């Protein structure tokens, strides 16, 4: 019962036996040559004990309160973006902001200054959204979203090379039931399914905050206070992240590659208006070069801003971007980390089907 046998040296040996076919063996050997195991490390003894204590305490606590586990341990899943490897919004490392935290019981706008231009803008955006056209989506259909997107890549010196905007298409499953394959992406010339990595035995991820289908979004409260309260409950901030930032980012994800009823879109914007620290940007631009108004929240600790862009004329949602707010090792202030411009949203009946190209009854 020691951990000494689990290092890379033994790892090589172990898998030799499990690799069956000759073909596999050759491939495995080449991979091992291409990818020498990085150095392994032991956790410091006190940290090792700390985590063990935490585990034992949890076990103790659970055994005295709830005898059986209620739900599976699948971690909270956000909207998947395999090509980008994360949601657009800057979620991690939000720090303490020098703003008063509003209560997230939804009691109100007390901390939001009257006349805040962000609040005014979001109210106008919500009014426009409420009057937009609705396309109810069935469970067996797919939401199709075409966008122009770019993500920065790290250079070896620690700075970032902004990405080149390229087209991305997604088809998102609308099934309410748990699913392991929940969509398809077409990007960089490749199609790849959005597959959920779920623990063995799990049926997959049902529609929900991590897989926001039309019908799930339609089921959300339309009272902004109640909705915000729900979003706080559904959002799990990353370690050290400010809850308000996490919720702002969650709303951004819900607005990105989705279709929802107008009343729910309006409610999301009104809920966002109640999040502290949200400001208006008089001139924001999306990855397609379209200028408009921005709604922004700055994550001080990560020195990044997340911004949604709205058309200056008709106040419709154009896209989202994140960028550095300070000069630093990662790059100069203003360096764009990720950006997306939504070009088209539609409802289709099959994977790889595009609006207008349907043979069926669109």
């Amino acid at each position, binding site marked *: 019962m020691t951990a000494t046998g689990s290092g890379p040296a033994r790892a090589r040996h172990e898998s030799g036996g499990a690799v069956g076919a000759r073909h596999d063996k050759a491939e495995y050997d080449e991979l091992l040559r291409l990818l020498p195991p*990085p150095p392994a490390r032991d956790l410091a003894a006190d940290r090792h004990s700390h985590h063990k204590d935490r*585990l034992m305490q949890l076990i103790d606590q659970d055994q005295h309160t709830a005898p059986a586990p209620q739900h599976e341990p699948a971690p909270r899943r956000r909207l998947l973006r395999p090509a980008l490897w994360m949601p657009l919004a800057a979620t991690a490392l939000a720090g303490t902001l020098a703003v008063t935290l509003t209560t997230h019981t939804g009691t109100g706008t007390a901390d939001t200054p009257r006349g805040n231009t962000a609040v005014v803008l979001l109210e106008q955006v919500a009014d426009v959204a409420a009057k937009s056209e609705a396309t109810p989506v069935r469970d067996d259909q797919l939401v199709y979203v075409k966008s122009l997107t770019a993500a920065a*890549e790290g250079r070896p010196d620690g700075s970032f090379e902004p990405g080149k905007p390229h087209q991305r298409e997604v088809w998102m499953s609308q099934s309410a039931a748990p699913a392991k394959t929940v969509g398809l992406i077409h990007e960089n010339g490749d199609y790849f399914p959005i597959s*959920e990595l779920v623990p063995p035995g799990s049926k997959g991820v049902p529609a929900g905050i991590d897989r926001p289908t039309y019908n799930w979004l339609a089921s959300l409260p339309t009272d902004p206070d109640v909705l915000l309260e729900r979003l706080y409950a559904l959002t799990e901030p*990353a370690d050290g992240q400010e809850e308000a930032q996490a919720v702002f980012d969650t709303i951004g994800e819900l607005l990105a590659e989705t279709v929802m009823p107008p009343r729910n879109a309006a409610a999301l914007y009104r809920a966002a208006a109640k999040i502290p620290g949200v400001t208006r940007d008089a001139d924001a631009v999306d990855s397609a070069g379209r200028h408009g108004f921005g709604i922004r929240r700055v994550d001080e600790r990560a020195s990044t801003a997340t911004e949604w862009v709205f058309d200056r004329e008709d106040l419709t949602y154009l896209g989202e971007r994140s960028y550095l707010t300070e000069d630093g090792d990662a790059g100069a202030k203003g360096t764009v980390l990720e950006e997306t411009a939504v070009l088209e949203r539609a409802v289709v009946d099959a994977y790889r089907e595009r609006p207008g190209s349907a043979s069926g009854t669109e």
Partner: protein
Amino acid sequence: MSECLRARIRAGDPEAFAELYEEYARTVYNYAYRLTGDWSTAEEVMGDTFLDAWRGREQLDPDRGSLKPWLLGIATNKARNANRGTGRRLAFLARRPAVEPVADFAEETAGRIDDARRLAAVRRVFGRLRRTEREVLALCVWSGLGYPEAAQALGVPVGTVRSRLSRARARLRRLTDQQLADERAENATAHTEPQRRRGEQSDETAFAALPIQQITEASR
């Protein structure tokens, strides 16, 4: 013993979890590091993995082999979550590979320096692979799981593990050679051909479009 431990884990025996932790904490910690590129994140992932293992104990398949694929499957999910968020993702991509302490560079043989350089190149290249490719590589090549075990950990068919590995291998060949070529070009005192700028390699599609022959020549 493993069978016995498995049954006790499923039954919720606290002592069995203590044993599980002692046996696999290090494995999970190092696996998490390979996916996240950050030791403190790896520690969080490791700690949370065991908490989730406890809470998900009843979903443990009662009759399969090692408990390792089960734990690494949970850790994979945790690492994916930890990697979400711009800050961490950017930190991962930007992080230089850890420099191993070297007593005296002058005594290093050319071969070892070359190895270290290769490892550094691998680390950077690894960060450019797709997430799903990194996961199968970390499971199969670095954590010693067989293909069926990796499939079990990821909840995908064995065929998917195979195809991801094949694809990863093809990309690794290209990316590693290119990375080394770039570094050699940079280190050379005289350049006989125009040097590629770093920025050019940030786009994977540009990489893929390079003729193999050209890359091979450049790396020789």
